[in-house]
């Protein structure tokens, strides 16, 4: 059974009809890349899954439960971690407090320290600093780490490589590859090279519709599809 199923999802943001029927499945384990051009509706798809932009039609099923009408915090509490596009690190809070915000139960952080500091050794050094004093790359690491604190079954990661220096992209990719061994990841990524190296399967969104899905290995060799939907 798939961990996450979207079936014929339509979403409006304000008066704008953004998603016109998105259907795909995310199997448990591994990384699924959500591909598509700018403005195709990838971020809105993530927001719909979390109930931040609720679906007007269609259904979202997480772990066998229909979450289409549920409230955001209830959906997240079912075990979905979210790393938004612009990181959304709380600058009023210290690095440690930012991580604590990811806790669902007291002491979650202590249980995950080894995992988190294993993936992002830099964070250990920064733990007492305020969120404002972090660089872009450090904020990105913190945002991913925060989604790992609770026992999430699915991570929604939006554009992790955006605005990062090449050396940091490498580090981030390595971390995502390692954490995907224990958690399922739905990854939105503009950078096709990054996505193709990380993900096993892909879904392509074009003008608010899911138009293609399959194994990443097939897509990499399919120059026509790449050109048509991604402009690569």
């Amino acid at each position: 059974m798939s961990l996450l199923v979207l079936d014929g999802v339509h979403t409006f943001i304000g008066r704008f009809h953004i998603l016109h029927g998105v259907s795909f499945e995310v199997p448990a384990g591994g990384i699924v890349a959500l591909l598509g051009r700018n403005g195709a509706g990838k971020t809105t798809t993530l927001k719909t899954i979390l109930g931040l932009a609720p679906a007007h039609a269609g259904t979202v099923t997480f772990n066998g439960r229909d979450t289409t009408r549920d409230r955001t915090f209830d959906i997240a509490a079912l075990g979905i971690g979210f790393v938004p596009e612009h990181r959304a690190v709380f600058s009023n809070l210290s690095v440690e407090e930012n991580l604590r915000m990811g806790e669902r139960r007291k002491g979650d952080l202590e249980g995950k320290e080894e995992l988190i500091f294993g993936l992002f050794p830099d964070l250990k050094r920064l733990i007492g600093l305020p969120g404002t004093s972090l660089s872009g790359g450090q904020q990105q690491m913190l945002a991913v780490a925060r989604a790992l604190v609770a026992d999430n079954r699915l991570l929604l990661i939006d554009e992790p490589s955006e605005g990062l220096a090449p050396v940091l992209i490498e580090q981030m990719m390595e971390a995502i590859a390692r954490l995907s061994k224990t958690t399922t990841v739905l990854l939105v990524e503009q950078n096709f090279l990054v996505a193709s190296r990380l993900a096993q399967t892909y879904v392509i969104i074009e003008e608010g519709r899911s138009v293609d899905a399959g194994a990443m290995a097939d897509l990499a060799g399919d120059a026509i599809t790449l050109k048509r939907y991604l402009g690569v």
Partner: protein
Amino acid sequence: MTGPKQFDRIEAPAPSRYRRIADTIRANRARTSVLAALLFLFVVAMAGIEPDQWFSTIMQGLSVGALVFLVASGFQLIFGLMDVLNLAHGELFMLGAYVGWTVYTRFDTFLDILIPLLILGAPFALLPLWRRLAAPVGRLARGGRVIAWGLFITGLGGAVYSMSKFPLVIWDTENFALTPVNMTVQIDIGLLVPLTPGDYAWPMAFAFLVVVLSGIAMAVGIASVRSTGSEPTRLGRRHVAAAVGLLAAAAVLQVVKQPFNGWVFELSTTWRFLMAVIVSTVVGAALGALIEVALIRPLYDRPIYTLMITLGVGFVLIEAVQAVWGRPEFTMARPAAFSGTGEGCPGEGIGGFFSGCSTLMLFGSRLRVYNEGFIVLMGILVLVAASMLLKRTRIGMTIRAGVEDPVMVEALGINVRRVFTQVFALGSGLAALGGVLAAPSIGLSTSMGALFLLTAIVALAIGGLTSFPGAAAGALLIGLLQQVIIRLGQTGIHIPFVEEPFKPSPTLVPAAAIILMVIILLVLPSGLFGRGEG
């Protein structure tokens, strides 16, 4: 860290302490110069005041500042987290004073009113049941809303009317001997006239029935008008337990209220005052939560509507207070611990308080223990407690995160709406606490809320609307400014080459506060401690 070292970090040598202080001053040049100018002004003003009045002037300033802070802090917390300007905040301050006066002066009336309120609350505990029953009404397009609101308003009217017919003992604003004004005098001399239920009262059983039916009508109305579909519709054991518990509490209260009331009236007024403080704060918090859930929550996306509705709530509260407590302003007797006079008073030093004096001589100044001691102490206590709450607790952390990005907090699995309600309750509770503390010092009037809220908003503008410490700093500044001007009005300012000393009149106080605000905002557009464009 295992594996080869990837980056060599060259750590800059740590700057010396003086260097860091110098850097901070340079980075905050505007703020530093404003603070220096304020300090200079304060010293100049103090030079015009007799040295034996320095201490009392400062303490009186702190006292006013503490009351303003209690209003401003709650207002700031609510605005900071939810971007809601709660214009009813001042009226919650006022209501705190009136509720406190009632608990302190007429505990029997308070107990009597509590009974129908508990009964009225019972149907609301069963909301899931009404939601299920009212589901067909909610599905009707336009007619459903009319039915829902009709039910709610009928219930509200029934509840209010039956309250006035409930067999309770209450003052009589028409009968001079039984007015609230007189009761303050009576309790001060220790002779409180016993009250009997008026002949307007319905029999208990009938009144009970009407209140229950009104409560059900209101609850059903709310259940059918405010339904997003995701609220629980199954009646859990705790819902039934809550409803039964409320009814049981009302029944128990009905039985024990006579002896309980007798016991409370035997207590020292100091204990009764403590009870008044606690009850007022709780009532303020509960009312705040109710306002948030019922009126503000559906309107978060429409800031102008929230502004209007809180303004309206304020007017409704003023009218309600006038209907219940009558129009004329009255005072609240000071609790025994703060009203001692006689042999050896005013007492020397702090010890004078423990020998039962209400005024003390400290550093050559005459101080009133309640105004300049207790209120200031409570202000500091709230400041410290609220700061600790914000800095050290999980909910404080969530509030700080929510101020910045409520959507992300929600995406982390935290119910931000619940945090909103809690903060609304906290802020309203602080306002009500301020009101009950202010009552023995400045008396009660229906206009006190608007006055204090206005002062608090000026204080917040000075301190920075986005900053909690800014609320404290602004309130302190306003308090000091006010007292310094009043004191200078007594002594007069000697202007060179002018014969007659200039005596600012107390009416200059609000103008001076506004002028100070304007000057500070010209230099620091987001206030002393605010962040943003400043």
